[in-house]
């Protein structure tokens, strides 16, 4: 008989966890988040989680929103999409959240969409993949730029510099794969031809073999690396080792100081598209983004003693847009909040100027990206 007892005990334990969250009084505004705080995408999820926690705590000190406290429920999906789907369900069914922010990666976001769409809960994703918002899904929004925009920005810069024959080297995991596919799609419209195309695994200790192949391809005028984590730093170091003379472009996936720290001197001269956040100080005073990114940078860096990244900014933008929508809707009614998020217009965030519409659930334009070059271990605006 003890199978039943054991099962019963386990279920009772889950029940107790469920109860403890349900027992909070005075109907707070509940914000749910599932993030990849551990696992291969932890450098996205960890700052996102810290950012959400910091601002929710601060907002609660200032009296919350609509006169109600804000309650934040965060789960760590470890980067696993099936876990993300289960946690999304838990947030909706068990924790009764009013809105969900999260999905550090495209895979976890896509898995959660299968849960949030039928449930009808507003969902703001923090991942880059264009599939999240294209085709438009009623309840789904996202804050970061898409990988397609990153590719467009890079190719536009190449075109400006007269580089038309290029090689790609991309990571064979989600971010790099998707970025690679989008790059192939948009390259022709910028007159860029991809003459060599290589991949590597995120944890490869050495990619000189792939780069040698690229180096031996005739006519390569530039190399474009799509990936995040330590991979691009390995690529950059190996690139220098092999003595390439053509410029190296990286994606927005490396737009954090960690990349420069890891790649060291080899990062000199690398170009990449990045949000205004990383070049906060260099933005002209007239830029409407300047005060926002400067303030966020100060908040984050004083709280956590580490350099701010654009990823933390995605979470900040998501939270701000969600709260603004709740304020405008003057309730947490899910349909009303959804409508208000869609009406977001002229929001100045860390990612750029956001104006959404019924057929654009991201609301950023290419101008949100700046081309930056790494010089003397720091970002320098290059456009």
């Amino acid at each position, binding site marked *: 008989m003890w199978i039943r007892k054991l099962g019963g005990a386990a279920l009772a334990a889950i029940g107790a966890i469920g109860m403890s969250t349900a027992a909070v009084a005075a109907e707070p505004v509940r914000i749910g988040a599932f993030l990849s*705080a551990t*696992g291969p995408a932890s450098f996205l999820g960890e700052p996102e989680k810290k950012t959400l926690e910091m601002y929710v705590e601060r907002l609660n000190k200032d009296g919350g929103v609509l006169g109600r406290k804000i309650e934040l429920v965060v789960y760590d999906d470890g980067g696993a999409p099936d876990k993300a789907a289960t946690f999304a369900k838990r947030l909706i069914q068990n924790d009764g959240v009013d809105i969900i922010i999260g999905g550090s990666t495209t895979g976890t976001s896509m898995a959660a969409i299968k849960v949030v769409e039928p449930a009808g809960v507003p969902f703001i994703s923090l991942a880059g993949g264009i599939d999240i918002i294209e085709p438009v899904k009623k309840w789904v929004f996202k804050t970061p730029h898409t990988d397609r925009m990153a590719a467009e920005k890079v190719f536009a810069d190449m075109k400006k510099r007269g580089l038309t024959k290029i090689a790609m080297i991309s990571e064979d995991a989600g971010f790099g794969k998707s970025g690679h596919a989008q790059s192939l799609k948009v390259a022709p419209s910028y007159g860029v031809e991809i003459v060599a195309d290589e991949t590597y695994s995120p944890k490869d200790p050495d990619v000189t073999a792939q780069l040698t192949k690229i180096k031996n391809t005739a006519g390569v005028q530039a190399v474009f690396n799509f990936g995040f984590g330590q991979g691009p730093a390995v690529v950059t170091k190996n690139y220098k080792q092999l003595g390439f003379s053509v410029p190296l472009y990286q994606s927005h996936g490396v737009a954090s100081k960690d990349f420069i720290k890891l790649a060291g001197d080899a990062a000199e001269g690398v170009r990449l598209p990045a949000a205004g956040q990383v070049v906060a100080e260099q933005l002209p005073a007239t830029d409407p983004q300047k005060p926002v990114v400067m303030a966020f940078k100060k908040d984050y860096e004083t709280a956590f003693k580490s350099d701010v990244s654009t990823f933390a900014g995605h979470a900040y933008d998501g939270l701000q847009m969600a709260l603004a929508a709740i304020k405008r809707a003057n309730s947490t009614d899910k349909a009303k909040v959804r409508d208000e998020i869609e009406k977001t217009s002229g929001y100045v965030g860390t990612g750029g100027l956001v104006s959404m519409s019924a057929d654009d659930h991201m609301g950023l334009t290419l101008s949100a990206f700046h081309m930056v070059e790494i010089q003397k271990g720091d970002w320098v605006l290059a456009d």
Partner: protein
Amino acid sequence: MFAEFLQYVFAGLTSGAIYALAGLGFAIIYNASHVINFAQGEFIMIGGMSTATMVAAGIPLPVAAAAAVLVTMLVGVALEKFAVEPAKGADVTAIVIITIGASIFLRGAAQVVWDKEFHALPAFSGETPIAVLGATLMPQSVWVVGVSMAVIALLWWFFNRTLFGKAMLATSFNRLAAQLVGIGVKKVLMVSFALSAMLGAVGGIVVTPITFTNYEAGIMLGLKGFSAAVLGGLGNGLGAIVGGLVVGIAEALASGYLSSAYKDAIAFVIILLVLFFMPSGLFGKKGTDRV
């Protein structure tokens, strides 16, 4: 053409030396106890992480490296003392689960003790590439290969020229007989974990300038090390080294000449083929089951 080939070989040697060190760690513990220690990769991670954080805190590299090796060896001994030894007599699969549990535990501990970010170490002797016959080699790769060779030579001396080393070898051949002639099997077990941890730590320290490290860095290296050890023939130190180099070079040549997307798959296909024809790996003892 030749320069290209040489470049692939250099790439393969760098990765291969790392895999070989990891594989050797598997082999030593396997010899002493017939345990496959799936936490071997975590030794590499702990070695790299402790050195990187200590150097970042301003401690000179040699001091930091020595301290890191010591810390890792302590972890290795603790693992043996508190997880492997109490489970003696357990089924092989049970011990596999224990060491996998240990690797998850150590990873979890690392993200609490340190953080989830990547850490780098400066290269030991600069970053000016060395040109060899049209191909280039980083000084750090020379360090990796050189230190690996030095450690391997040291181990050879230990196992063949010291009394205790010989006792360990004897235990691996016949545990009961070793016990009968008065060799402390418990001590042998503990020393084997300490040695493997040391190997892992040294490997972790020399590769961190190349690959960087974070709390999850041990997973991939552990897996590749296991592959190297099995390919070479379990319990054969030389086999593990050759296995590591074969896997590393096969990967590099595959990404150079075939497809970089399938290089890992190609490495595993090679391992499978070898096992189909040589079921005990390249240098494994032919198994004779006692009935």
